C-alpha cells in the first residue's frame, strides 16, 4: 500500500483512484496526507448538494473562512477559479495542495463542464494543486463525451483473506490478548469469508459475536488457548448470524438482546422482512385487488372475468394467443384509472357510490407505494397506475376479504 506514496508526490494534475467498497481508499489517502503534512481538502460529493458548497468547502480548508465568505451566492466555477487565484497569490503554495473528492461518481450528474474543469484545475488556477477522485466505478464510465484530460489511474485491489485478518485483528478487545482475538477472527473469517468480503460488514459481525465467543471463557470452562472448544461453541452461532444479521434484518442491539435471552426462548425475533402484514380499509383492499388484476390481466380478458353474461367465448379461442410467457414474469403493466374503477365496481360485492374518499384512497395507496402512478403528475385527465405489490401480498389481502383472486388471474387459468 505504501508504494502509492511515490505516485502521490509526483505532482500530477489529477489522480483517479478506484476500488471496491471498503478497500481502504479514503483511509489511505487520509492517513497519507496527514502523515506527510500536506495541505489538503477532503470533500464528499454526496454532501455537496450544490457546486457552490463544494467550492466553499475547498476554499475553507485551504485559505480559511475569509476566503470562503468571498464566494458570492450561487457561485459558479469561474467565481471559484477567480477567488482561488486571488487567494493563492496572497499565500503561494510551498507544497502541492490536494483536493480529495470522495464518491466522485456523483460528479457525473453535475454540470457537464465541472468534471473536465476539475481535472485540469492545475492549469486553471496556476497553482500546484492536485485533484484526487475516489470512486467505486472504473474511469471508463466517467469519461465525458467531449473528451477530457486523462487522470492518472490507480486501482485499489480487494483485500485478501490474510489482509482482512490483519486489519480485523487490529481492533481487538482491550481485555483480551492479541492471539486470542486473532484466533477469533480466524474462525469468523472461516465462516463468513465465502459469502462476504466487505470489511465493514465483517467488522460489524466480529463486534457482534465476540461476546458470545468469550462466554465459555468467562464461565471458566475453557482456557484462552483451547481454540477447538471455542470453535465448537461459536460455530452454530455464527451460522445463525449469517442468516439474519448479515442483511441487517435484525439490528445490532436486538441481536445482542437476543443473545442474552436466547437460552430461554430460542430466538423468536423476526427480521424486518418478516413483518409484511399491512392493515388496510375494506375498500382499499378491493382497490388494491382491482389494481393487481388490472396490472396482470390483459385488458381484453376483462370481459370474460367481470361480465356475468360474457357470451360464449370459446376457451381455445380465448387462450390461443401466443401469450405463453406469464404476465407475472413480465411484471405489472400500467392501466388507466377508468379500468381500475370498472374492475373495482365489479369485484366489490356491494354497490359502492363513487365517493370522493374512494378517489382519495387511490392516491393514498400511491403515497404508501402500493400503487405507483405511471403518468405524469400534471395529467389530471386520465391518470395511469401500476400495481406495486407482490403476489403473496395480494393473496394475503384477498384472503382477508374472502376473495379468490387466483380465479380471476389470467395466468392461472
Amino acid at each position: 500500500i505504501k508504494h502509492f506514496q511515490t505516485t502521490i508526490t509526483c505532482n500530477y494534475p489529477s489522480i483517479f483512484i478506484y476500488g471496491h467498497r471498503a478497500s481502504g481508499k479514503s483511509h489511505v489517502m487520509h492517513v497519507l496526507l496527514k502523515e506527510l503534512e500536506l495541505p489538503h481538502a477532503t470533500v464528499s460529493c454526496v454532501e455537496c448538494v450544490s457546486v457552490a458548497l463544494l467550492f466553499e468547502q475547498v476554499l475553507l480548508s485551504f485559505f480559511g473562512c475569509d476566503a470562503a465568505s468571498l464566494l458570492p451566492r450561487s457561485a459558479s466555477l469561474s467565481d471559484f477559479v477567480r477567488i482561488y487565484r486571488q487567494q493563492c497569490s496572497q499565500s503561494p503554495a510551498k507544497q502541492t495542495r490536494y483536493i480529495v473528492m470522495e464518491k466522485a461518481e456523483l460528479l457525473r450528474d453535475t454540470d457537464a463542464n465541472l468534471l473536465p474543469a476539475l481535472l485540469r484545475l492545475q492549469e486553471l488556477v496556476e497553482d500546484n494543486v492536485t485533484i484526487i477522485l475516489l470512486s467505486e466505478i472504473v474511469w471508463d464510465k466517467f469519461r465525458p463525451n467531449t473528451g477530457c484530460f486523462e487522470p492518472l489511474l490507480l486501482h485499489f485491489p480487494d483485500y485478501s483473506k490474510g489482509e482482512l485478518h490483519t486489519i480485523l485483528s487490529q481492533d481487538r478487545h482491550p481485555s483480551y490478548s492479541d492471539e486470542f482475538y486473532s484466533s477469533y477472527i480466524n474462525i469468523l473469517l472461516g465462516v463468513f469469508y465465502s459469502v462476504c468480503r466487505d470489511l465493514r460488514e465483517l467488522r460489524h459481525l466480529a463486534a457482534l459475536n465476540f461476546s458470545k465467543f468469550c462466554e465459555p471463557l468467562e464461565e471458566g470452562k475453557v482456557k484462552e488457548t483451547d481454540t477447538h472448544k471455542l470453535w465448537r461453541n461459536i460455530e452454530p452461532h455464527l451460522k445463525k448470524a449469517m442468516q439474519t444479521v448479515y442483511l441487517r434484518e435484525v439490528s445490532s442491539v436486538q441481536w445482542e438482546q437476543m443473545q442474552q435471552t436466547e437460552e430461554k426462548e430460542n430466538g423468536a425475533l423476526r427480521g424486518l422482512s418478516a413483518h409484511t402484514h399491512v392493515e388496510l380499509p375494506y375498500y382499499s383492499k378491493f382497490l388494491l385487488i382491482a389494481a393487481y388484476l388490472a396490472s396482470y390481466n390483459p385488458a381484453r380478458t376483462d370481459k370474460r372475468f367481470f361480465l356475468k353474461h360474457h357470451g360464449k367465448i370459446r376457451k381455445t379461442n380465448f387462450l390461443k394467443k401466443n401469450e405463453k410467457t406469464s404476465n407475472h414474469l413480465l411484471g405489472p403493466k400500467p392501466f388507466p384509472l377508468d379500468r381500475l374503477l370498472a374492475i373495482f365496481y365489479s369485484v366489490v360485492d356491494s354497490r359502492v357510490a363513487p365517493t370522493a374518499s374512494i378517489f382519495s384512497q387511490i392516491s393514498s395507496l400511491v403515497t404508501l407505494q402500493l400503487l405507483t402512478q405511471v403518468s405524469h403528475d400534471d395529467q389530471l385527465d386520465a391518470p395511469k397506475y401500476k400495481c406495486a405489490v407482490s403476489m403473496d401480498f395480494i393473496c394475503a389481502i384477498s384472503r382477508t376479504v374472502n376473495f379468490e383472486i387466483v380465479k380471476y388471474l389470467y395466468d392461472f387459468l
Partner: protein
Amino acid sequence: RDTTWPYQCFGCFVFKPSAKKKKTLSLADHFIHGCEGAENSEKRFKLCQDLWDQIKTDTEVLQDELNRNILDSLLDFTRKCSSTRQHSDWASQMRASEIPTAALVLGVNVPDHDMTFQSLSDLLQQSVTPYVASVQAKECGALKHLIKRVLERLMGTVVTVDDEEEEEAEQTSAQHHKSVHCSLSTLCDWYNTKTKKSNTGTPGKKRSSPVRDGPQQPPVVIIFKDLEAFNPRVLQDFILICSRYIERLPLMFIFGIATSPSTIQHLLPHSVSSLLCIELFQSLSCTQHLATVIDKLILTKQFPFKLNGKVMQVLISIFLYHDFSVRKFIKGIQLALLEHFHSQPLSVLCCKKKEALLNVMQLDHLDLERIRHLLSFKRYVEKQEPREQVDLLTDDTHLKEVCQKLIKDLHKYHKNYYPILRCLHTLTSSLPRYPLGKQIRELHLICLEKNVWESEDYQSAMKLLKMLAKDELIALLQRCAEILQPAKSKKIKSALVQLEDMLTKFKQLDSNITSPLKHLQKKTDLAQLQKTLLEMNESRRAKKLSPFEVLRNEALEFIDSLVKSHLSPPESQVLNEVCYYTSSATVRRHLNATPRTSIQAALNSPFYYLQNDRLKTEDGTVSNAAPDICIAYATVVSAAEGNDPDSDNFGKVDEVKHARFIRAVSELEFLGFIKSTKQKTDHVARLTWGGC
C-alpha cells in the same frame, strides 16, 4: 390524505365543523343564524360547545393514554442510545458508527399520525433532548430541501439554499438572522457551541438528569413522518451524509412507517441500511384504537348526546371501508353533535340530568308544542288514560312535570343500558362464530336497531351459552359481576346481588357434588364403564337435569330477563329525540361526498341548486328555461339511449343558439361526461365509467 384527484375540488367537502367552534362571538351568531327555534339557540350553542370541549379533552387524554406505551418505549430508546454513545466500552465503540434508528409502525391511517408525532416530539423535547426536528416528505423533494428543513427546525434560523433565488427568503434572512449555509457541518458547529454553552453557562438547567461524566450530549433527533413518501434517493444521500458526521454529532432517526417495516429494505439499499441500527416499534392497530374510543365516548352515560343506529353505522362504515382514521370518526361525531344542536330545538334538554330538569321548567309554549309533536311522545300519550291524554295535550304545566319524569326515565335507561350491554357482550363475544359480533360496537348497533332478544342470532347465542362448560360459564358470569360492580342504579345493584348469589351457588356445586365422571376414573373394567355410560345416557334422556343444569338455566334466564328489560332500542324510549341524532343522510352527505353524483343531480334537476321553482317540471324532464348545459346533458343521455349520436333538435338555428350549444357541449366535455370521438367531426361519445 393528499389527493391528486381533481374531483375533490368540487366543494362538497367545504363543511368544516371545527371552523365553527372557536370561541368567538361571530361563531355563536353563525350558529344561531338560520337554526331551528331561535329562542333558546344561545343556550343550545353553549351546551353544544361545552359538550364538544369535553369530548375533545377526553379524546385527547384517551389518545395520550393509548400512545403512552409506545411513546414511553421510544423515549427509553432515545435515552438508551444517547447514554450508550457516551459509554466507552469496547462493544459500543465498535457500534459507534451506526445511527440509532427507531422504525415506528403506525398503520395506514396517515391523518391520525400527526397527533402522535406531535406528542412524541413534545415529550422528547421535555425529557430527552431539546433538539428535535420532524420532516415530511412533501416538503423535501430534493436533498437540499431536506437538509434545509432539518437545519431550520433545529437551529431556528433561516437557511439559504444557494441556487434558489427567492427574493423574499433573502430579505427575511437578512433581517432576522445571518444566513447560514445549508450543510450539516454548519449544524455540527452550531451543536458544539450550543452544548458547550449549556454545559458552562447554565449548569443548573440541565441537572435534572443524573450527572454523567464527560460533556453531556443530548441526541439530535430527526423524525421522518412518512417514510414511504420520501424519495429514496434523497433519503439514501441524507443518511450517507449523516453517517459521515455521526462521530461529531449524536444523530438519531425515527421513521414513521405506514405499511410494513420491509419498506425500509425497499427504500434503502444494503450499503445505506447498514449504516443504521434499526429497532422496531409497533403501535396499536387503528381498529383497537377505535374500539377504545367507542368504548369511552359512545358507550357511556357520561355524554347525554347519542347517535342512533344508522348514524353510527355510517360513521363506522366510513372508518372501516374508507380510511381507518379515528380522527375523522371523531370529526364525524362532532358534525353530528353540531347538527343535532343546530336543527333540534329540543336539544336544549340534551345535557346533564339536573340541568335538563331545570331547562324543562323554562320551556315555553312553542317548545312544549314541539314535544307534543314528537313521535315517541305521541306513542306515549296514546297509551295513557283519556283523561290524562287531554291533560298532556292541553295543560302546559302538567306536561312540564311529566317531562321531568320522562327525562329522568331516559337517564335511568342509559344508566342501565350500558352495563347490561357490556355484560351481554362479555357473555357472547367468545362464542364460536360470534353470533352477536366480536366487537361490542356490533352488539351496540344491533341493540340500537331493534329488540335484540327477538333476533335469531340472539337465540343461537343463548343456545351456545347453554353448551358452555361449567368453569367457562362461571368465569364469564364472574366478569359480568365485575362489570356491574361500579354501577349505581338500584336495578343494577339488585341484579348484581342476584348474580353473586348464583355465583356462590355455582361454587357450592363444586364442593357438594362429585360428578359421575369422577367415579368413572376409578373403574377400569370395560363392562362397568359401559353400564355407567348407559345409565348416564338414560338419565339424560329422561330429562332429569343435574343441579348444575338447573342453575345454569336459571342464570341464563336471569340474563335474558335483564336483556329484555334494559336493552330495548332507544326509539322505544319517550323523548329519545332529545338526545339521539338520527339524520344519517346528512352525516353521509357531509363526510362521504360524492362529487359526481352531485354534479349529475345538478344537471338533472337544476331547481335544486338554483332554488328556482319555475325550473321544476312534473314528469322529470328538463324544462326549457333550464341552463343550456342541463338541456345538453339531457340530450346526451337520451341520445346515448336512443343510439342517436347527435342532437339535431336544434336543427337550423340562428348563430347565438348555435354558439350556446357549442359552449354547453364543451362544458360537458370539461366535466368529463362526454368526449370527442375524433372519428367524424361533430361526434361525441358519452363517457361511461363509474356506471353513474
